[in-house]
């Protein structure tokens, strides 16, 4: 990647925080050259920089060398248009998209598609590193809780679930083969997953009414492998439990995990937009996590016991 910054347009209601906006506008390899305001992306919470406003992608593409589009809310039609124009796209998981729309999205190009994930969170980076070290052997079973404080919405639940599924696959190297799920108040979504190679896992997503970010909710991964037991918790001291040794306690991250995630995604988008043929683009993989979400929601809604466990399409 050269020293010149890659032109990027941002769109959507805005980032989660002012800090995230700082990261967007201050990235080493990406330069925000304008804000795209469409009918579905009105004036946002944090878009307050003095950059040009565009009313459509065609107008934005007049910027010489435009290569990247950052969405803070998914817009499938706009993403397909951008990808076809060779513009790399980062978008949150389009949980409301139909299977047909997802299919179109997954085959669009030549721009690279990146769908938001949390693999850059300190907890998952640490987990992946430890699993790949071999110290814990082969992942057998996992339990992931992502109970987040703050406002509750089904959109947030579904996006969190997709990211959680992707996280488990990322950490373990396994894929989901079937799912049984249950939904409940406070946007609870509990998934019981069959994984490839005989693995299995649970994912629990919900919203906690406790709004103190440090004190409320639960973001914890428990992984039992053939050689050891791994327990990692985000935003709290992390514990690696190997009882044959003295348990070691360490804190990683030390800040809001979301910022690590957004910075990592920006790096990925820059790499994908610059030259990396694969980039770190995870579009197709996240689309599979979306399929798991759809199966889970179908399972939760299905009254008959026979239909509650749904086999998914083969790994792409």
């Amino acid at each position, binding site marked *: 990647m050269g020293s010149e910054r890659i032109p990027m347009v941002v769109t959507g209601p805005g980032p989660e925080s002012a800090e995230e906006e700082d990261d967007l506008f201050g990235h080493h390899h990406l330069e925000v050259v304008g804000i795209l305001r469409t009918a579905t992306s009105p004036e946002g919470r944090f878009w307050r920089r003095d950059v040009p406003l565009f009313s459509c992608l065609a107008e934005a593409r007049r910027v010489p060398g435009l290569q990247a589009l950052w969405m803070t809310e998914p817009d499938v039609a706009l993403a397909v248009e951008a990808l076809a124009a060779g513009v790399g796209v980062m978008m949150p998981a389009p949980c409301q998209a139909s299977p047909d729309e997802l299919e179109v999205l997954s085959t669009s190009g030549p721009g690279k598609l990146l769908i938001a994930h949390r693999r850059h969170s300190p907890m998952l980076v640490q987990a992946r590193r430890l699993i790949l070290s071999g110290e814990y*052997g082969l992942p*057998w*079973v996992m*339990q992931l*809780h992502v*109970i987040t404080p703050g406002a509750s919405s089904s959109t947030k639940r579904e996006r969190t679930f997709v990211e959680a599924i992707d996280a488990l696959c990322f950490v373990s190297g396994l894929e989901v083969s079937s799912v*049984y799920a*249950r939904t*409940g*108040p*406070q946007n*609870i979504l*509990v998934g*019981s997953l*069959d994984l490839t190679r*005989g693995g*299995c896992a*649970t994912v*629990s997503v*919900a919203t*906690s*009414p*406790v709004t*103190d970010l440090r*004190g*409320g*909710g*639960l973001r*914890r991964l*428990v992984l*039992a*492998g*053939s*050689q*050891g*037991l791994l*327990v990692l918790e985000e935003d709290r001291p992390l*514990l690696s*439990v*190997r*009882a*044959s040794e003295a*348990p070691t*306690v360490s804190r990683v991250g030390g800040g809001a995990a979301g910022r690590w995630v957004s910075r990592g995604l920006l790096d990925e988008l820059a790499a994908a937009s610059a030259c990396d043929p694969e980039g770190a683009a995870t579009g197709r993989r996240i689309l599979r996590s979306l399929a798991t979400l759809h199966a889970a929601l179908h399972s939760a809604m299905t009254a008959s*016991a*026979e239909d*509650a*466990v749904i086999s998914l399409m083969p790994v792409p």
Partner: protein
Amino acid sequence: MIRVGLIGCGFISGLHLDAYERLRAAGRNVEVAGVADVRGNLAAAMGRKYAIDNVETDYRHLLDDSSIRAVDVCAPSPAHREIAVAAAEAGKHVFLEKPIALNLDDADAIICACERAGVTLMVGQSHRFEAVNQEVKCMVDSGEIGTPWYASSTIVEGYFWPGAWEAWQINPEQSGGNLVQNGVHEIDFYCGLFEEVPTRIFVRGRRLGSSHLDTFDYWHMVLSFESGRTALSTYSYSIVPPDAAFRAIYVLGSEGEGRYDSTSNGTLWRSAGATNAATLEPQQFYLELGAFLESVEAGTVPVVTPSQARLALELALVAERSARSGEPIDLPERSYG
């Protein structure tokens, strides 16, 4: 004075005998008057360790002892019906290790025999006596976290049953399967926590220790309640290394949450605008057997009622079926009591 005859001298009996010693030390008027096990060496060893002179290989000798008012049955589950019915017919109050039996016919026979004889029957659903679980129950009942909608408990351990391939616990004919043997604890706890009976059970099981195991040494269970509540229970033995252990519980309510794990130095973190901590000590068998003795002394219905123990078994049998079939199983709506 309540003189107790303890029948079955396997692993769990030692925890019971320790608890009786603590109860005596705390001033409770109880004495273990004899122990029995068909494996005479085990009974003798237990007698030596706890200074109990009356050591038998035939439990019926304890039933013949008129000074013994109650029996504590720690024998494997298949023996429960014979021993409990005989004890009731001999006029002894009965404490039974969980599960009450391996099938509902046996459970009903035990309950009927105790009712007919007018003796107390209590089953050792010990998890509800664990300090953290009691604290969680108090937290929920107080309304501190509003309406509880989700709860998750996690027990993962390197423990494996003693006896290797000969362990009765890994033989489903002897144990009913791990969902009956240990799932019964979790089911009983959640029914009591929510005071509601699940209407759907789904279990995924795995054989971590060996694919040749006839029982699931790992399972997770999703309990669905008509109210909209959900409970997730994760239970595993055979974790590596053998001394690994992690326990946790989390309850999410409409107005707060409670969170405990075994790395938090016995603290239940509660957040309903504030964070409180309670020190929790392991004392489940002490509390459980104390509750049994209280009910014998007072002639009251024990805190674990026979119908609750039967319900836990019924649901555990369903859970075992779900684990083996891979299918969720629906249950009729009914009240908890």
